[in-house]
């Protein structure tokens, strides 16, 4: 088990290093630089700007300097948000994004689980039809459309929730629902399918023959088996929530880290691009690692891998 974890940790570090390298050279190869603006700057001013941020060095030197700094926890200063360190910006905004992500994941798991179980339990009911409809539409509906629809219903029509910002628990409801909707649909579909499959299994027939009620069979015998596929889905859900948060944070004006992601790219804020990419990259790789470990712990058959 232990060497296994070590090997996984090593591959995590390697993945992050490759990610840093690719991102660094990609962003430097994109046309347009951080200080290109509507006004042509006097040459002396432009030269001073480049020097102060180390942009006058050859790209490979900038790269080694950056990696060295990053290993020491220094992500450099932001170009656009003048006077702020990328590390400070991440420290400020990451907890908000994390809270949003955890809430969305929790909501997705609870709602998806409930919906999946109910629709498997009442397979030929309206609820089951609704689940299928919900899954397909949530998977194909872009989040900005969903957000607009939710804002229209709950803020403009019913006037019971604030349309944006991150101030009270009430303002968190809509962004969390929006962000968690697609993962919830994924969970519901998976649970439903796997429950329906296990309901055909031999041990269920035995249980039925023993006279157990359908509810007990479902909860006690089938559901536990369906958790494994959900666990394997978790990595994908986290990825979904991270990429979804870029848009959701922007739309709901949430002061999280996802908002910086797009902002940094459009303004060619190199240190901010790197910092944010690395944090998200880490979250993604680490969550996959945790899923792997949990999987091995839950299912003895996988431990050899």
């Amino acid at each position, binding site marked *: 088990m232990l060497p296994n974890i070590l090997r996984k940790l090593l591959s995590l570090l390697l993945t992050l290093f490759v990610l840093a390298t690719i991102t660094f050279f990609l962003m430097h190869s*994109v*046309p347009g630089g951080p200080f290109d603006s509507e006004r042509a700057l006097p040459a002396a001013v432009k030269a*001073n700007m480049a020097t102060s941020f180390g942009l006058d060095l050859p790209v490979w030197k900038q790269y080694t300097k950056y990696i060295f700094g990053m290993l020491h926890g220094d992500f450099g200063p932001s170009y656009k948000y*003048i006077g702020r360190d990328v590390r400070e910006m991440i420290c400020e905004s990451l907890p908000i994004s994390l809270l949003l992500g955890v809430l969305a994941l929790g909501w997705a798991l609870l709602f998806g689980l409930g919906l999946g179980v109910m629709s498997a339990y009442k397979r030929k009911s309206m609820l089951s039809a609704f689940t299928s409809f919900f899954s397909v539409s949530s998977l194909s509906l872009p989040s900005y459309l969903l957000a607009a629809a939710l804002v229209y219903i709950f803020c403009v029509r019913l006037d019971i929730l604030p*349309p944006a*910002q*991150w101030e009270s628990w009430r303002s968190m409801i809509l962004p969390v629902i929006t962000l968690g909707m697609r993962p919830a649909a994924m969970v519901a579909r998976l649970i439903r399918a796997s429950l329906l499959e296990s309901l055909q299994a031999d041990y269920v027939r035995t249980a039925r023959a023993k006279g157990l009620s359908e509810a007990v069979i479902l909860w006690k015998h089938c559901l536990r088996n369906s958790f494994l596929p959900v666990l394997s889905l978790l990595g994908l859900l986290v990825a979904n929530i991270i990429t979804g948060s870029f848009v959701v944070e922007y739309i709901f*004006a949430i002061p999280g880290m996802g908002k910086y992601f797009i902002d940094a790219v459009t303004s060619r804020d190199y240190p901010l691009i790197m910092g944010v990419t690395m944090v998200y990259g880490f979250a993604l790789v680490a969550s996959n690692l945790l899923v792997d470990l949990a999987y091995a712990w839950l299912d003895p058959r996988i431990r050899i891998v």
Partner: protein
Amino acid sequence: MKLFLLGFLFLAACSNRREILRFNLSGDSIQLDWNRANDTNSVVVLDNIMEGLTTYADSLKTGTTDFLRPLPALASSWALSEQGRVYRFNLRKHVYWTDGVELKAQQFVDSWQRLLDPETKSENSYHLYDVEGAKAFTEGKNKDFSKVGIRALDDYTLEVRLRRAAPYFLHLVAHVSTFPIRKDLFANTLSLRNSPDRLVTLGPYRLSSWEHGRQLVLEANKNYWGGAPAIKTVICKAVPEPLTAEALYENNELDILPRDLPTSMIDRLAKRPDFQTGPRLSVSYLVFNTRKPPFDRVENRRAFVRSIDRNLLLSAFHGSQRATSSWIPPGLPGYQSEGELQPLPGKVISLSAPISMRYSGNDTWNLSFQILQKSLKEKNHVGLRLEQVDWKEFHGFLSALAQHTLPAGEKIPDILHMSWVADYPDAHSFMNVFTSGSESNYSGWKNAEYDSLVDRAVSTPDEGERTRYYAQAQKILLLQDAVIMPLFVTSHQALVRTDLRGVVLNPLDKWYFRSIHLEK
């Protein structure tokens, strides 16, 4: 008793509400170092917490050109001598910074020295290039600041020597980059992000807090020389998405949406009493690449201009743009309302190869140019290749073009679509763009007569004479040589609560909260 208490609370909430104004900034990447600030959001904040020698009118009657006149602010008066080349500003006395230190003329000298110093890395140094010796100082050709034409004669008198009359100079000293600084403090400006309330300023408001990503809060400055403003607290929220900002406004969580209304809603919003609109000094235009065929020939340029009906392209904008055929926008002396090249029906231009056009803009611009593409194809059988690029890429390309550092093999498109926003409300801000020394002239076109007309216009203080020079120069630019094709002037579109008085849609997109008050 309960009812009474509730009523009291309600009244308290109302009166409280009346002293707070909630304004939307689209972001909070605010540059607090005013020598270096030049983006819209930073300028809004700085215009309210600081002040310069001059400022603009608080209240405008629609249809007047009051905004053309800079008003005394920190300078209570000024005198001109030597054919308008020497300004002597008399500073207001008993003006105090928020830490109690008095305003002195030397603080302007310190500021301007810092603004011009290339070490400061300011993008705004060009604002002072009309001052004697200023440009050489920024370019590093002269390191001795005493050779630059600015001096404090005593604590309350500032003398500025210009190299030419530059009749628009009083506008430049209303720009945030020329505001005074406290040399004993400015080194701290950058470290103030986490304790913005320590920022020492002297404007009608002071910065009281800054929650990153959420909002900045401005509080009225009780010691402001002009008296504390009526609105005690201004909350500047950072909501980037127009639809969200609009929803917050409808939900009574914002009082002013200054710009960026959602395009899809404008037709509906425009009918409401809280919708306000006004002109802006911003012109969008097409520039021809005169270096190579087909637009090296003036006949082709003229024919192209005549083949386009601006009104056709306008349908995409829902009133946020108005057609113009003048390079100097309406409201400024030198504006020409008609007489330029008018569109002709039928086939006007014949070109053998398709032409390319590069631009950076949102979907609305995209739609507008697709309409253009279609009409060119149908009417004139001319193919138009649209090259939409992102903003940074576009300006990276332009600066390489201006400095002749384009990579070998990179083609210059036949047409560029650009916008020009006035730095100051004067025709020179526009006409200067196409002089041969200008770094914003991407056409490859030069004309000695044009240069000389613009130069003469900027060296005379006589308004009538200037307007005549500009009219002649504009004829060369648009009719004789057809170097550019002006398309639209931008309009302000804002939502402002109807109980707010004194809200001015300034054509320079400036916002002064000091003049705003709530209807009693």
